[in-house]
């Protein structure tokens, strides 16, 4: 596993794309697609913990 760097997380983000992209091989295809889907799914993790705090 790649060494993780501590990043201050912004709203909507659990693991920033900038951190994740360092862990994966060079993207030969559509990098923007990989980034977008990473961020969309990552946002679900963010929603989970903040909704646990606020709604549940």
């Amino acid at each position: 596993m790649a060494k993780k760097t501590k990043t201050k997380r912004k709203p909507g983000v659990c693991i920033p794309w900038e951190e994740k992209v360092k862990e994966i091989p060079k993207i030969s295809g559509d990098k923007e697609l990989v980034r977008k889907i990473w961020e969309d799914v990552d946002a679900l993790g963010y929603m989970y913990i903040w909704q646990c705090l606020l709604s549940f």
Partner: protein
Amino acid sequence: MAKDMEQLYAERLKRYVTAMRNGKPDKIPIRPFVAEFVAKYAGYTCQEVTHDYEKAFAATRKCAADFDWDAVVINMVWVWTGLTEAIGTKYYAVPGIHIPPDTGFQYREPPEEQAFMKPDEYDQLIEDPTGYLFNVWLPRVSADVAAMGEPTSYRNNLSFLKGGMAMLSYFNACGPQVERLRRESGTVSAISGILKAPFDIIADKLRGYLGLVTDVMERPDKVLAACEALMPHLTHVALSGADPDKNVPIGFWMHRGCVPFVSQKHFDKFYWPTLKPIIEEIWANGHQVLFYAEGNWNAHLKSFAELPDQAIVYHVDHADIFEVHKVLGQKFCISGGIPNYLLSVGTPDEVRDCCKKVIDGVARDGGYIMDASAIIQNDAKIENIKAMTDFTREYGTY
């Protein structure tokens, strides 16, 4: 029939939105925040509507179909305890498990020394709120989630899997519920999205009320910095759940940030400076916020009056609604003011008299929405809710 429902929905939406923008609609909108009342009316126990959200949805739809209400919350019972039990949440007393099946769910605040956040952990929260919630807070509030550094477990892994799947299941069911209310009874979904004040959420779920009021004396700079660190996250969550059509407001639940829970000085130092910019940001994005002012917040009306015109809808619980109208009525729509005790132990005539008094006092120029003071639970008499509804329809025409 479908066309009639769509027309009814359009009329109700226009009525509701016009009032919320502090205008004068054709009639006073009726938007009762019916919680466990829907169970009583539809023949369910509190356990059924709290633990099975489909039953809560069905009960809400039945009420919406039978009462002439303009808007309702799609499920005002709110906490689905099927989810909270699945992830091992410790802080709820669940109907049918910890409390009798026909008692509404309860929040159990831990003793001060067992608060979910320790007094020396402010820096961790300030540095990384999301990380703190995952790594420190969640393991403490869940019986199944392992703390950082402890061995993981089957129950730990399942907690995240089941919790995530359950939350998506619940939220994915909300959209169809909104549509069914519209299609089947022409009823508007009253709110969209959630907001709590930074100061309130620290008291509610992190330090506890006693811990926080100690902290404002012993480590005030940390408290303020923590509130500030939470602001962008709470703003983000509120906006991410907001109505994309910008019609209905974000629900903002106000708890213990007011006098006498805190002093005026502490309200001015902690609560308001870390809430006001959130409301302004949300309004700048085109969304209203419904201030659900539980208890009595009249000591702070002048602060709320600093907000831009129409930025909020102000819901009145125990406070003097006529005083609220005097201070805020020129700027904001007001809702509520019919005491829950009256709906519980009063007579229909007493309810009608109270509704008349409130309508005469605050609704003459529009900008008022009929509702009880607080969420309506299963102690309310059905005939009293009917009296509130029918009287408002008869008398509340402009």
